[in-house]
């Protein structure tokens, strides 16, 4: 089988495509967006962790309860500062995250062993400060518990009696686990890159060709039409593979610059990990352009084709997006399906299990069959007089 004509077509489409500014911007945007987004998420997470461990507590009425103020100051990572004059207004206009108010009758009630009033002023709609407020409330409960215990002991009663429950908090969404959900964004963006980097070339080589009326002269050449379609697909697939590899490489680089160990993340995205993810996900860089070439044939103009492409991209990202909310259940029926199969393989790998070579090969074979199917369908369209001449 002589594939030289297919390569001639692919070379032309790549030359032509890379001179298209729209294509360059799309490639740059789609390869950079994912890594930067993942980096941003990790930074936010790290920032929140640090912020919750070290809190600054603005206190109004320090002199009303020096015993509480002293106790707070002795806690690690806690700094007590003077609170604003109008606590509620200050929280509302976000000049402070929260305020602890020690009321006037604190000292008197504390002395009489009655509940001494304090107020925690905060805004629950501000999610980023939630961890800090929670830390303060835990501290206050501990202070209350310690003093209460001391008081019971002074009266000859065991403090145990006052605790009907022994509640132990086991936080499942630890920083490390939340970091793992961020890792699940990586296959999402790598697959999105497969769909978006080849997209411009796939549409320009088909719908664009129809729009410019250049399909007719092209088809007059004595070249089997499947080779023309194959060449167009090959050009888009090369772009998609490069886009995918670039997205992975940039993500790995960005992550290496962040200190993920502080978050308790043990997974390291090094070269072997990148190669594995590339092997698992690269069949999508062949499937995506085949789908795009086929769909774009139906469009009379480049613009029309792009609207189809947007839906296709959204559809491709859907399983990945859902997976970041609900972990992908590894159902047997998902593995052989293109797209879902690739997500499952990648998620499994990021979760610490290495799928077998057989699983990788099986998923790749199915993907290649899908490529063949759509290229065959697209070739049939290249025989349609409606597609060649229809405007």
């Amino acid at each position, binding site marked *: 089988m002589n594939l*030289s*004509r297919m390569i*001639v*077509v692919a070379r*032309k489409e790549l*030359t*032509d495509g890379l*001179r*298209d500014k729209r294509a360059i911007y799309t490639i740059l945007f789609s390869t950079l967006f994912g890594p930067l987004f993942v980096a941003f998420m990790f930074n936010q997470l790290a920032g929140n962790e640090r912020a919750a461990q070290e809190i600054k507590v603005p206190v109004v009425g320090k002199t009303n309860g020096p015993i509480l103020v002293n106790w707070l100051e002795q806690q690690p990572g806690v700094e007590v500062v003077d609170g604003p004059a109008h606590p509620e207004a200050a929280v509302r206009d976000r000049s402070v995250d929260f305020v602890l108010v020690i009321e006037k009758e604190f000292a008197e009630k504390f002395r009489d062993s009655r509940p001494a009033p304090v107020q925690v002023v905060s805004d629950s709609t501000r999610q980023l400060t939630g961890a800090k407020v929670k830390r303060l409330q835990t501290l206050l409960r501990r202070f209350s518990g310690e003093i209460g215990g001391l008081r019971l002991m002074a009266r000859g009663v065991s403090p145990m009696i006052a605790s009907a429950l022994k509640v132990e908090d086991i936080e499942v969404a630890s920083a490390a686990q939340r970091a793992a959900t961020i890792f699940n964004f990586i296959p999402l963006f790598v697959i999105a890159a497969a769909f978006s980097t080849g997209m411009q070339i796939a549409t320009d080589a088909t719908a664009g060709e129809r729009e*410019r*009326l*250049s*399909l*007719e*002269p*092209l*088809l*007059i*050449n*004595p*070249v*089997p039409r499947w080779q023309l379609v194959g060449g167009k697909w090959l050009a888009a697939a090369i772009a998609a593979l490069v886009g995918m590899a670039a997205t992975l490489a940039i993500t790995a680089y960005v992550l290496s610059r962040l200190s993920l160990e502080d978050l308790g993340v043990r997974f390291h995205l090094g070269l072997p990990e990148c190669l594995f993810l590339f092997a698992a996900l690269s069949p999508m860089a062949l499937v995506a352009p085949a789908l795009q070439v086929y769909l774009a044939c139906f469009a009379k103009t480049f613009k029309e084709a792009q609207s189809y492409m947007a839906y296709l991209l959204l559809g491709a990202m859907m399983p990945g997006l859902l997976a970041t909310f609900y972990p992908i259940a590894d159902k047997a029926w998902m593995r052989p399906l293109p797209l879902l199969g690739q997500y499952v393989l990648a998620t499994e790998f990021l979760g610490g299990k290495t799928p077998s070579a057989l699983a990788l090969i099986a998923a790749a074979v199915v993907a290649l069959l899908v490529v063949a199917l759509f290229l065959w369908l697209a070739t049939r369209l290249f025989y349609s*007089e409606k597609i*060649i*001449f229809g405007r």
Partner: protein
Amino acid sequence: MIRTQNLKKHFGSVLAVQDVSFSAADGTVTGLLGPNGAGKTTSLRMIYGLVKPDSGKIEVDGHDAVANPLAAQACLGVLPDQSGLYPRLTPREHIRYFANLQGITGDELERRMQTWLDLLDLKAMADRRVGGFSHGERTKVAMARALIHNPQNVVLDEPTNGLDVVSTRTVREVIRRLKGENRCVLFSSHVMQEVSALCDRIVVIARGRVVAEGTAEELLATTGKTSLEDAFVTLVGPQGEAA
């Protein structure tokens, strides 16, 4: 040598070509003359294998163009009614692309490229992107790209349509040159003057049928008119929108 026999083609309920038979010989310029919508472009598209006839036969240098379009296409050079260029490529790249698709590469390609760039006066702009080219320049690029493989049979669909005087002249020179090289040139037009200036034989098409065929003198003799224009109007009938 191009030969068609009883070609018929309909699109939906419209019968575009009813019965077209003619032949175009080597070393001859054959003109397909007819009003707009007569079926000229559809007939040509059947010859170069992009439209499948409902019935009828087409032969290009002995190859059955219906059963084996690739073999027929290999002996054809075609300038369709739209130049259909890629705005981001240069003339040189256009020519190289089609030459490579025809299997021509290397020194042979470079040599032919020079010849055509010279012949069509495209040298100065050979490495500029065609995006900003005029209609005449675009037609010349499309022509060079269609003829780079030295096809024995050349089909030109209204090649001089909308061209200025200088470009028209260049196109005519190329057609005469091809004739001189004993090629078979088939070109369509709805312009009388164009056909009479260039053609050895004229095939008149109207409403999807060949209504007359012959040299200009023969057409005048059959219709009994003194000018080709009158002969044309007589042949295509009152419904024809003669140019």
